[in-house]
């Protein structure tokens, strides 16, 4: 599998990552190298194998669906780059 520049540009936007134009080609080369190496998984017969969905063989614990924490918006938002009255502020989304 070989990725071209446009595919890298598309993935980068899906991942919301700014990638300067001059880095698209080198990245396409690196990512293609990794993907080509991963192609070896095709050698493994997995026709009758269920994908691993949980690491430990255990039943996840249940708990009551109740609020157990909270009530301190100042602490929660203390690291926000921009905030107001317990809310996060972002650039205008809707004109």
């Amino acid at each position: 599998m070989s990725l071209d520049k446009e595919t890298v540009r598309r993935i980068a936007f899906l991942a919301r990552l700014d990638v300067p134009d001059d880095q698209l080609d080198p990245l396409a080369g690196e990512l293609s190298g990794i993907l080509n190496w991963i192609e070896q998984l095709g050698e493994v017969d997995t026709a009758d194998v269920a994908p691993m969905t949980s690491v430990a063989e255990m039943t996840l614990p249940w708990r009551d669906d109740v609020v157990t924490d909270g009530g301190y918006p100042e602490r929660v938002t203390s690291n926000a780059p921009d905030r107001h009255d317990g809310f996060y502020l972002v650039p205008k989304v809707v004109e």
Partner: protein
Amino acid sequence: MTTLTDLTIAEARKGLDAKEFTAAELTEAHLAAMETHADLNAYITPTPERAREMAAASDARIAKGEAGAMEGIPIAMKDLFCTDGTRTTAGSNILGTFVPPYESTVSTNLWNAGAVLLGKANLDEFAMGSSNETSAFGNVVNPWTRTDQPERKLVPGGSSGGSASAVAARIAMGATGTDTGGSIRQPASFCGITGLKPTYGRCSRWGIVAFASSLDQAGPMARTVEDVALMLGAMAGHDPKDSTSAPIAVPDFAAAIEQGVAGLKVGIPKEYRPEEGFSPEIDAIWTRGMEMLRDAGAETVDISLPHTKYALAAYYIVAPAEASSNLARYDGVRYGLRVVEDGDSLNDMYCKTRGAGFGAEVKRRILIGTYALSAGYYDAYYLKAQKVRALIARDFKTAFDSGVDVILTPTTPSAAFGLDEEITDPVTMYLNDVFTVPTSLAGLPGLSVPVALTEAGLPQGLQLIGRPFDEDTVLRAGRALEKAAAFTAKPRLLEG
């Protein structure tokens, strides 16, 4: 005072209880050593004030006869564990100013047991790396050097490189690490210390900056098997805030380590002898390890883990896929870096923030993960990798079901390499983890114990792999190996 830093955790605990020295003295000795060896760059954020306060509190508890299992023991905390009020960076610019308003469960457990925080240890950015060279806060230096090139600086391994370097250089008695594909065991081997990745679910992941959630596991790094067992006892336990942390009792790990290995069946997997890049020297150290365990009364049996060679490729789909999802949270909205200019849209802000905040390796993995999870490729990559992962886990289960108690392998295919080697091919770097990744994919406990020095005078570890939640047997076998190997060599840095 300098000799205080040479004590093991177990020895220091005895000395503190016997009032031979105080926790304050023990901490001061380490703070002084940290300054002496600041060039190693093992710490991103030293916390001397907090250390002194915690040590004073420890002395008060010792005086009242209320000492915990880690009382007064100064440790380094990998800068991936959130510490309330102390900056936590994950080795990334995107979290460069992040001060968590909460404390991780594992660090809380350690403080409750009386441990003292010396500082936050350096690491590869978001724990993604095998040499600590991806940290936004600079490389960490391994305190060991080659005897034939004493001036050449070597990497400590990664991602828990700061933790490993600090413990080896005696500027921490122990350190926390996290291990996703080898990030505790590989640096432990490179720095000549002992490191354990516990079973997935043994320690809570709550409050640890997430990399790959189905693989990440916190574990102890220290200079002896006993110390690792002591630390693990303090770190482990079920946590309602992490539903994947196992609701099972925490045994007294340290109590079991002297039980010996008589009658144990030690599996030797033939697939851990790759054709390329495997040093014959390390093969010989592995063979000596087998002899040591046989001399101690264990039986070695040849086993096969047929899907081993596919583990790395499966890992480099699963881990980046989970990382791309976990790291979506760094968007410049709630914490961390924000890069935005007047007139920018929300998408502009996301893209600029993430483009500026993440380093090259993290970006590579986010892109691989995003691609593997994107429409039309999910089945071909992620699903396929999870199927191969199931086969790798089945290989281990088959071996253990056949009566094998523990598996012995090398920890790494080579000893520590030079900071100047500049390994630019990502796949070559990934091969460092060829022996540790299978264990991670299967969620099993893996312990690295330093066993010998290579011809160049560098430490090399062997890895012991156990059944799920059977850290006891892994530690017992590790202790037997440790006794037989009698590894007492110290980094040249400390020999003055």
